[in-house]
């Protein structure tokens, strides 16, 4: 293949990748084309060719930035929200109230927090799902960093007589623990007349563990935006291999050692995206430890523990 044909083929390939939305593949091909042009001495129009390729690469950079900055949970139309509610409530044929709760929780899972709060609030009069609805309302506020609003709503419920004392106590304990995990010590009034047995503190070992599980969402993966190193500004997603409360353990392959070097023990990671089946949310964490695995099938890989600091 002559030079002209080869270059044409490279640029055509890059253009097709671009049109397919395969940005990094197109980027790689344009870079290869630029290298190829550079390697040929006495090429006619060399500089104008390089300029044209450079323009293409700049355009790809802009597209990549737009994709990276794209919203993870934009506010959807009512029609789309209704569809989510309808499609993601699985108890439809079992129990109407549970289905309604599932639908509202599904909205929260897809980041439609305002509508979720509204729908969950409408479910509060339903005795059987009241506590779950209330916890999910608080969870929505806490996920969107409206801690003050969560506390205000608890006070409002405390001043009303919608909740039975035992129900409100469960909600209080849930909120209190969630606040403590955010490092906030905000006293919440206990409901008058709550039966001691309703309070999780009366069953210290088992109940505490259950509450502790509930305080933290199950995180399936996290996205870390690097602040330094070759991946500065880029978000990389890692699967969570193990979770204990607010501590997440990740196994990072030895092939990605370069990335691990940018995450030192004790370092604060300010921009982490947490992905859970309940919601996607942003927060921060601290690298609690970094260990090289010395034996077994993962020998040479790294185990990274990240403590969730805030969310």
């Amino acid at each position: 293949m002559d030079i002209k044909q080869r270059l044409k083929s490279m640029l055509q390939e890059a253009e097709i990748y671009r049109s397919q939305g395969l940005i990094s593949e197109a980027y790689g091909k344009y870079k290869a084309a630029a290298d190829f042009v550079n390697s040929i001495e006495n090429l006619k129009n060399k500089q104008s060719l390089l300029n044209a390729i450079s323009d293409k690469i700049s355009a790809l950079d802009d597209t990549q930035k737009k994709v990276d900055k794209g919203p993870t949970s934009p506010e959807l139309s009512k029609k789309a929200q209704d569809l989510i509610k309808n499609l993601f409530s699985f108890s439809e044929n079992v129990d109407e109230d549970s289905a309604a709760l599932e639908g509202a929780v599904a909205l929260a899972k897809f980041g439609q927090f305002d509508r979720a709060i509204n729908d969950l609030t409408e479910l509060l009069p339903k005795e059987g799902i009241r506590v779950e609805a209330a916890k999910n309302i608080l969870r929505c506020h806490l996920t969107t960093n409206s801690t003050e609003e969560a506390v205000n709503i608890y006070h409002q419920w405390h001043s009303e007589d919608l909740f039975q004392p035992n129900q409100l106590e469960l909600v209080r304990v849930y909120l209190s623990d969630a606040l403590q995990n955010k490092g906030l010590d905000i006293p919440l009034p206990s409901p008058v007349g709550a039966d001691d047995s309703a309070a999780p503190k009366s069953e210290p070992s088992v109940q505490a563990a259950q509450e502790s599980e509930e305080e933290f969402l199950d995180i399936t993966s996290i996205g870390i935006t690097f602040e330094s190193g070759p991946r500065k500004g880029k978000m990389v997603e890692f699967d969570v291999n193990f979770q204990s409360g607010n501590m997440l353990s990740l196994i990072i392959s030895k092939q990605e050692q370069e990335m691990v070097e940018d995450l030192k023990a004790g370092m604060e990671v300010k921009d982490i995206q947490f992905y859970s089946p309940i919601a996607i949310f942003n927060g921060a964490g601290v690298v609690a430890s970094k260990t090289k695995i010395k034996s077994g099938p993962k020998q040479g890989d790294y185990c990274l523990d990240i403590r969730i600091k805030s969310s």
Partner: protein
Amino acid sequence: MAIFNLKKRLIECKIVYYGPGRCGKTTNLEYIFAQYKKQVKGEMVSINTEGDRTLFFDFLPMGLGQIRGCDVRVQLYTVPGQVKYSSTRKLVLRGVDGVVFVADSLEVRREKNMASLKDLQANLKEYGKSIFKVPLVMQYNKRDLADQGIPLMPIKLMERDLNRQLKVPSFEGSAVTGKGVGITLKECLKSTLKALQKEFKWAQ
């Protein structure tokens, strides 16, 4: 999980199109929406973000009419392929009855295909389903790009990469032209309904 309403003689099942980002899952659904008007029972809903990338899911409701005395309805979904939307993929996969795995035939996407299939296996496992047991069909998409001189993986290689152990039905496809789209869906419906028939014993 499919809904089987014995009283109304109605079966509603869920088929999810899975695969790496930009492999053509949404294009498959768009083609079905445009060409199977008789079976399509509503609007196709797409929730996209920058560059027409699927953000949450695409949804297309279909009706297959009466099969052995039962009204069969099918909901087609796609998942967002981008790696960062892993929790959304898992959510959409909940209650799935059949899966179409759309693999990208471009040589440069070889690893992405394998990673996505592994992701599917892991997500199914979380719902207590085995990739070896769930009704699954493969589509090797973008075969048309060979005409433009773009390096594609030979089918043999794709079969070895993705289907060596699964041994599920597989089809060459070009979702933009529609080639292979119908047969892929039909095969997936066939194996899904067969599995549901076995489970619910509705056609006996």
